[in-house]
């Protein structure tokens, strides 16, 4: 039995998401770090912060690996231990979990956890190729499988099994674009109509352009500390109460059930168990909508509705900002943007804002318990965290 809370978040930062021309990954991360430092005047970064755990997916985009110490250097944290984590789009979700372990183990009292990606300078075909690196080379990449393609295979299976419709998927896109229109840091700050979404061009059938998240530059970070030190740095820390991670086969073809993401179900189960929370306790959730079908299936697999009802859930309005279980108030990957390595901690950033009442026009009333669900690849990794306002 692990003593709770696991850790506290005392500050957080997020760069603008989008096409950040002229800035490299290390520079983009600096803007996220600067926000986190500026918001936390009691923290002396060079004295207090004893590590950097950084999610960063692809060395190919900037021809640059070893980004842990690189970024630590650029934000003035050298010579603290700095680590790069790569679990595809769950890179910083995994970094967050390992950051919690670093705190909980007694190795460090304060650590920065974040993520960064620089992608928009690439041609679409190159970005598609580099993102596909997280799929099995020998049995998926090698046969021309792409990430939209893999989620399209899942979508078609779900449609076949549960009569899920393209309109239900498009409804998720419309909701998330509405939320993104309320987020000044979102890449796309404009609403879309159901018709626009349903008539956009096909990327990988049955998925259309508006079913897909964006290609983005961006960075995110949080400052983690031991719960007993939290009030030294913040009057309104939030607490991490549960953490779950699970893996699934690297090849989609090896899964008996294509309509469910087993790693999501397992990661959520463990995060709930550790936190003592249940799906109905969650006030606000950020889940991995790399594609609309991913949000739909995750909303089922984390227990917000019964299996197969994800489409009905969004159509009911329950996942809107003023619904019973608001999902992706930030705009999600779909509208806020998806700088892959930054995404996991960007979810934590939104929950930090929501739970501390700083979410502005998209604030959920009385949000006290939050959930993040970060996916890597087509569900070969899933990481879930549960957050609360009280210890």
């Amino acid at each position, binding site marked *: 039995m692990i003593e709770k809370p696991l850790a506290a978040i005392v500050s957080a930062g997020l760069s603008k998401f989008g096409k950040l021309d002229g800035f490299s990954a290390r520079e983009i991360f600096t803007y996220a770090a600067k926000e986190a430092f500026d918001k936390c005047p009691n923290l002396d970064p060079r004295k207090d912060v004893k590590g950097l755990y950084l999610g960063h997916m692809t060395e190919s985009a900037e021809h640059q690996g070893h980004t842990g110490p690189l970024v630590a250097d650029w934000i003035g944290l050298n010579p603290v231990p700095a680590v790069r984590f790569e679990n595809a789009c769950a890179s910083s979700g995994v970094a967050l979990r390992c950051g919690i372990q670093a705190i909980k183990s007694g190795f460090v009292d304060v650590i920065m956890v974040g993520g960064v990606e620089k992608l928009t300078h690439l*041609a*679409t*075909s*190159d970005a*598609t*190729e580099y993102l*596909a690196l997280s799929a099995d*080379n*020998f*049995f*998926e*990449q*090698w*046969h*021309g*499988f*792409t990430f*939209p*393609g893999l989620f*399209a*295979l*899942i979508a*078609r*299976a779900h449609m*076949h099994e549960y009569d899920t419709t393209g309109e239900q998927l498009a409804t998720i896109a419309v909701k998330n674009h509405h939320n993104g229109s309320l987020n000044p840091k979102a890449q796309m700050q404009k609403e879309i109509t159901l018709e626009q979404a349903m008539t956009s*061009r*096909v*990327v*990988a*059938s*049955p*998925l259309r352009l508006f079913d897909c998240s964006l290609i983005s530059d961006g960075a995110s970070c949080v400052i983690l500390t031991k719960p007993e030190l939290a009030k030294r740095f913040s009057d309104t820390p939030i607490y991490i109460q549960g953490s779950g991670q699970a893996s699934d086969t690297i*090849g*989609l*073809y*090896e*899964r008996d059930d*294509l309509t469910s993401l087993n790693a999501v179900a397992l990661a959520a189960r463990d995060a709930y168990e550790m936190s003592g929370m249940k799906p109905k306790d969650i006030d606000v959730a950020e889940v991995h909508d790399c594609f609309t079908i991913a949000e739909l299936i995750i909303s089922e697999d984390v227990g917000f509705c019964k299996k197969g009802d994800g489409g009905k859930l969004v159509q009911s309005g329950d996942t809107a900002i003023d619904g019973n279980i608001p999902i992706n108030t930030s705009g999600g990957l779909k509208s806020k943007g998806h700088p892959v390595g930054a995404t996991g901690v960007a979810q934590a950033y939104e929950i930090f804002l929501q739970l501390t009442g700083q979410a502005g026009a998209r604030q959920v009333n009385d949000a006290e318990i939050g959930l993040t669900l970060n996916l890597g690849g087509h569900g070969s990794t899933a990481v879930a965290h549960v957050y609360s306002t009280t210890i």
Partner: protein
Amino acid sequence: MEEITLDRDETGEILPTIQNFYRFCGHGRLMALKCIECEKLLIPPRIICPKCSSSRFKWIQLSGKAKLRTFSFIHIAPKQFSSQAPYIIGIVKLEEGLSLSGRIIVDKNVKLEIGMDLIVEFEDTVSVGWPQWPRYYFKLAKVIEQ
């Protein structure tokens, strides 16, 4: 039986490797591993049986008959495949119960449906070095029977 160059261990056994799987493909054969201990079938091959941890296998040839589990038309492709787009990818269930991913190659007028009968074929390409291997793909079974 034709001569196939395969990687073997020091005792002459054919190694349970991905490269050998694709070498068989290069000779028109879709092969799976069968665990000698627990009889589990494996495709792709593995060094250790995930069911019983044994490392003793034999290679067996599959029928190549399959049913379509799911599919997608890829319109935006990585650079390497851009010139082929749109093309079809899918996951099939092989007659022996295993699933496999691969290209689905059909005429433009064919309406694909989940459950359709397919059969394996092989690309007529020469391997250009590790890991550039000859590919298998799937086509409609009934067309082949014509």
